[in-house]
């Protein structure tokens, strides 16, 4: 379960992570892309934090939708539409909710994946954001099905996300600018998969704190 204040905490923690890992993400992107992922993500989430107080009183769906719209209009590049679509779809999935059940959280994650796939026209195994996101959600679903709590499931989810990041080092990029490198993209981890792994890390940290 997650309350509105958990969702707001998650957004704040993730924004801090994007500021903290700005250079790291940019370095990964310089190796195989155009070298702006960390810059763009930290700019986008800085704008999110500035504008967040305006939606404190709204429902969770409105908050997520607003985050998505701010990202779309401030991040640019490919990550703006991708992360923006993810947050907007997640918001639409939990319409009118003041708090989220575990089923709601999983539905929101699923819809977020759908949003990214629609916008990016990618599937798993193409060295993208999806390669950490899809395994993480699978792991969360499996853990919940095993009767674990959401906090425990998010620990498993984060681990699966980082395993996914490791996996991106072994595959050839076929989407995005990294695809121009062909086989030369092997050995490098995908910056988008990395920034997505921090999503699950942030969610885990929120769950740890509230002990849900």
């Amino acid at each position: 379960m997650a309350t509105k204040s958990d969702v707001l905490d998650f957004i704040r923690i993730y924004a801090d992570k994007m500021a903290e890992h700005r250079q790291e993400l940019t370095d990964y992107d310089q190796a195989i892309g155009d070298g702006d992922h960390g810059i763009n993500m930290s700019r986008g989430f800085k704008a999110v934090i500035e504008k967040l107080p305006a939606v404190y009183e709204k429902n969770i769906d409105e908050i997520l939708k607003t985050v998505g719209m701010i990202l779309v209009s401030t991040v640019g590049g490919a990550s703006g539409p991708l992360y923006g679509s993810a947050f907007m779809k997640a918001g639409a999935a939990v319409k009118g909710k003041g708090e989220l059940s575990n089923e709601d959280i999983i539905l929101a994650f699923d819809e977020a994946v759908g949003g990214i796939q629609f916008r990016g026209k990618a599937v798993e195994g193409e060295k993208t954001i999806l390669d950490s996101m899809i395994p993480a959600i699978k792991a969360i679903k499996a853990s919940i099905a095993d009767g674990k709590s959401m906090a425990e499931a998010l620990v498993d989810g984060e681990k699966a996300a980082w395993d996914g990041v490791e996996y991106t080092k072994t595959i050839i990029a076929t989407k995005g600018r990294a695809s121009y490198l062909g086989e030369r993209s092997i050995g490098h981890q995908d910056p988008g998969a990395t920034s997505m792994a921090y999503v699950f890390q942030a969610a885990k940290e929120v769950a740890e704190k509230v002990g849900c």
Partner: protein
Amino acid sequence: MLEGIVLAHPEYVARLEGFDVLIRADKKINKVALVSGGGSGHEPAHGGFVGTGMLDAAVAGSVFTSPTPDQVLEAIKAVDTGQGVLLVIKNYTGDIMNFEMAAELAEAEGIEVATVVTNDDVAVEDSLYTTGRRGVAGTVFVHKIAGARAETGASLDEVKAIAQKVIANVRTMGVALKPCTVPAVGKPGFELSEDEMELGIGIHGEPGIERKPLQTADEIVDYLMKRILNDIEFQVGDEVAAMINGAGATPPMELYILNRRVSQILAGKGIRVFKTFVGNYMTSIDMAGASITLLKLDDELKELLLAQADTVGFKMC
């Protein structure tokens, strides 16, 4: 930067208030409108091509980063006259997503929007396993020719069709001798030693086909032209427009030296150069390098290429 462009050329372009968008300074004309744009750092592209016979609006993103959908949407709304708007997009994942989102938003507001995607860079293999070829300097010919067609009062479908004809017939390849630096990053996007060059470089410094020791200008042109000529069928007597485009830190002197060899090679193959363009059209900030673009022409394309264009970065009178 946009402020500086408007202050320098108020007779050509105006800023769309509150947005990173340049529009034509003259009154809206009742015709299909052309909107293009992309990351900054490619000047004069794209704002420099706003004007008579080319673009109606150009949207500028951060350096090497696609503009966002809300900015593109405002550009579309500013120039639409009810005849529809053609978006000319260079084939990069970010540009395509942001422009497509803008197109969806504009359509939801009742504006007719069509899109074309330029992909003239022969250095990238076009296959199911890549994002596809990059849109580079050949995009300027799409602006020129589709823009000329729009000025004749053609419909959105007709303007889109001619843009696609240009895309089907234009090929480019580039070389870099020194990398470029995105200011916010503060260090070069890739390493290249003094005596090396990257063949097949992209306009954001993306890697090309191979890295080799420096060669003479003629040898470099031989390499690039071989790739371009292998990619599109030419017959004796065909006519082309050639563009020798500077990457930002290459002096005109060197571009003319490259052009000398381009002309020699084409003459040797019996291909007639109908029109040559030498200069900075699609740059990569401070990169030292150049690209060669060939556009295969027919009578229709020739007529539209020669039609009047009056913009900061491209003139035809």
